[in-house]
């Protein structure tokens, strides 16, 4: 039935002069998201973006893809016609018949918006005309202007668009409207969700993954790549860095106390992340930490870990329960991948009794047994882009 989708923007109006730029960016993202479809064109017509397809059967899939793009407030699958009055009426009746085949409709309303003032009829008059034709054709329905079962919207611009349904989208802000951040992406459940939440506010994402090959498996890499690909449906293209932490783990094991392993390793990870971020003009880091979830995510532990760097760390999950995080992970379809068994860190490096109340002073003392800079340089030589 539908040959076009009308896309409305969300909070863009906040952005004043930049509006045009962000609209252009959104159009590019829509095109990127729909690259697998043939015969699709994307264009603007006074205030909205339109996605037109020659294959009507693709429309559901197109809507599903576009729905995942941040900065869009809703999508309406529509019928595009010329501005010939008779054709508009004919197509509206056709759409109405289609709607009747899908749901039980007793009452309806026609609403017309006329941006093109040269159109011969005024909005109210045209609505009345089309409504009358519907009543003629379908004797069992009535008009109800207050709470109709279905509202048919006729939008007369350069072309005419007839629709009845508004599909809610994810909201948020268009990607790139808010700078870039580096996500510490593990193979777990939390970090992909954290990346999603920040991307939703218009932030572009790069990701950094730490492994300890050959203490971990190549399958763990594959898993993180899969997670990255899932996130890309929302976050656009993501550059994924990987760093092998083995040398640091070896050094910690040799020169520091076992119970400090996790805190020390996390401090190293932050330093490495900060370094990569600075080199790539990225302003903030993102982690999937949730307060109190594990030993390294207590207040004290987080404070000691954060102390290692100056760059701000965004922790969008900090106040969420595990069950709430899992719910979002399921929604964005990363959950099933996250629970695959391949770990990003071998249990060899997980202390039996990790500290939950680390003291900054003693952690710093332990660190003084290590050549921090040299170790960072050493592991950075394993930096790869996956």
């Amino acid at each position, binding site marked *: 039935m539908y040959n076009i989708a009308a896309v409305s923007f969300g909070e863009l109006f906040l952005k004043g002069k930049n509006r045009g730029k962000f609209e252009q960016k959104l159009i590019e993202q829509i095109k990127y998201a729909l690259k697998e479809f043939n015969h699709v064109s994307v264009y603007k017509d006074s205030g909205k973006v339109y996605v037109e397809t020659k294959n009507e059967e693709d429309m559901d899939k197109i809507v599903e893809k576009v729905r995942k793009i941040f900065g869009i407030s809703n999508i309406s699958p529509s019928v595009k016609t010329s501005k010939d009055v008779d054709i508009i009426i004919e197509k509206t009746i056709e759409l109405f018949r289609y709607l009747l085949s899908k749901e039980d409709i007793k009452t309806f309303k026609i609403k017309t918006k006329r941006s093109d003032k040269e159109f011969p009829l005024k909005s109210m008059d045209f609505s009345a005309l089309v409504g009358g034709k519907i009543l003629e054709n379908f004797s069992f329905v009535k008009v109800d202007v207050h709470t109709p079962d279905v509202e048919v919207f006729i939008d007369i611009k350069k072309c005419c668009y007839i629709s009845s349904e508004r599909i809610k989208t994810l909201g948020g802000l268009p990607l790139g409207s808010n700078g870039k951040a580096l996500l510490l992406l593990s193979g777990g459940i939390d970090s992909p969700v954290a990346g999603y939440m920040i991307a939703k506010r218009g932030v572009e994402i790069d990701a950094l993954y730490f492994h300890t090959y*050959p*203490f971990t498996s190549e399958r763990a890499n594959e898993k993180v790549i899969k997670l990255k690909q899932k996130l890309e449906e929302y976050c656009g293209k993501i550059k994924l860095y990987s760093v092998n932490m083995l040398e640091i783990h070896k050094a910690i*094991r040799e020169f520091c106390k076992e119970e400090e392993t996790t805190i020390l390793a996390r401090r190293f990870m932050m330093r490495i992340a900060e370094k990569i971020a600075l080199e790539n003009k990225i302003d903030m880091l993102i982690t999937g930490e949730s307060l109190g979830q594990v030993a390294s995510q207590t207040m004290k532990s987080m404070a000691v870990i954060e102390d290692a760097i100056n760059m701000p760390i965004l922790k969008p999950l900090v106040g969420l329960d595990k069950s709430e995080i899992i719910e979002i992970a399921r929604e964005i379809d990363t959950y099933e991948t996250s629970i695959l*068994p391949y770990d990003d860190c*071998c*249990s*060899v490096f997980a202390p039996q009794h990790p500290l939950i109340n680390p003291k900054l002073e003693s952690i710093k003392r332990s660190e003084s047994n290590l050549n921090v800079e040299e170790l960072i340089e050493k592991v950075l030589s394993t930096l790869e882009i996956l």
Partner: protein
Amino acid sequence: MLVYLDNSATTKVRDEVLKEIIDAHENYYGNPSSLHRMGHKVEKKIDEARTLSAKLIGAKPEEIYFTGGGTESNNIAIFGHLSNLKEYNNVITTNIEHPSVYNVFKQLEDRCLVKYLETDENGKINIDELHNMVDENTLLISIMHVNNEIGAVQELNEITAIIKRKNKNAKLHVDAVQSYGKIKIDVNKTPLDTLSFSSHKIHGPKGVGGLFIRSGIKITPLIYGGGQERGIRSGTENTTGIIGFGKACKLMYDNFDEEVNKLYGLKNTYIKRLEEIEDIKINSPIDGAPHIISVSFKNVPGEVLVHYLEDKNIFVSTGSACSSKSKDSRILEAIKLSKEYRAGTIRISLGHFNNFEEVDYVIDNIKKSVKDIRSITKRG
């Protein structure tokens, strides 16, 4: 250098086999059930393969039924023997079976008494225990010939003798997937009833297996359909695979002693060289299969060693998983290997393409890796 030492998992198809398969795809693509000449030609090819695979165990060709693989053969045999299973019956197997037998018996626990034979440190079942277990209500005993993790070999002649003496109606199924083509089996001398084998363990293609069913033994099929393989395994035959498998059988049969002696030689060399390393334990018994070496290293997670070696293009498998979340190896537990060794177990399994030139490279890298890993895992 690439050294593939995971031949018990699967093997590389031999060139001669590959050629045969390509030829089959090009020239013998008809359906053997078709009445015309194209079908008949393929039927003859399949019967040649049947003859070749029968030879390796001294069976008659008509006692061989092709299936989709070892797991399928085991399922067909076990369920096929038990169509008259009553609640008062019992069935017997060992605690070191492959999952394709073990998990079938776990299913059977709902329907009758299932008894599991224990094994000693060498992976051998206790003949006296078997003697005590078999009674007049025993319907089926299923015992693997060669264990896939450690290579322990069961004495089939002794086993069959005891079973037939205690209950001549009890049936014996042998899972010979790991021994077929590597250890001599003669079904004329060993009165077992059914025996399963697989193509891809002897350099044939995947997706082909076989089941020996002794003449006169009744097996009720699991799958019904067009009645292929005389009703035992309906479904159009994997003709090109079966033809390739026939070739793999012939290659094995024609050079049996030479092939097997080379495997024994390699195995003994590896074991001797592995013993140069401290704190290790060879789990494969001295009288085990020619191609399986299970070795455990103290303080070395097996999974980590596998990754260290893969980095050097050496491919072995673990006996046990490193993460505490994964289950420990049932077989290594059964042979009472202590926990500190269990986690550090790898399996080196040999095949036709392995040679003595590889040994130094493999052993050097194992030594280096083990040393490296131990320096990390040992604290302080």
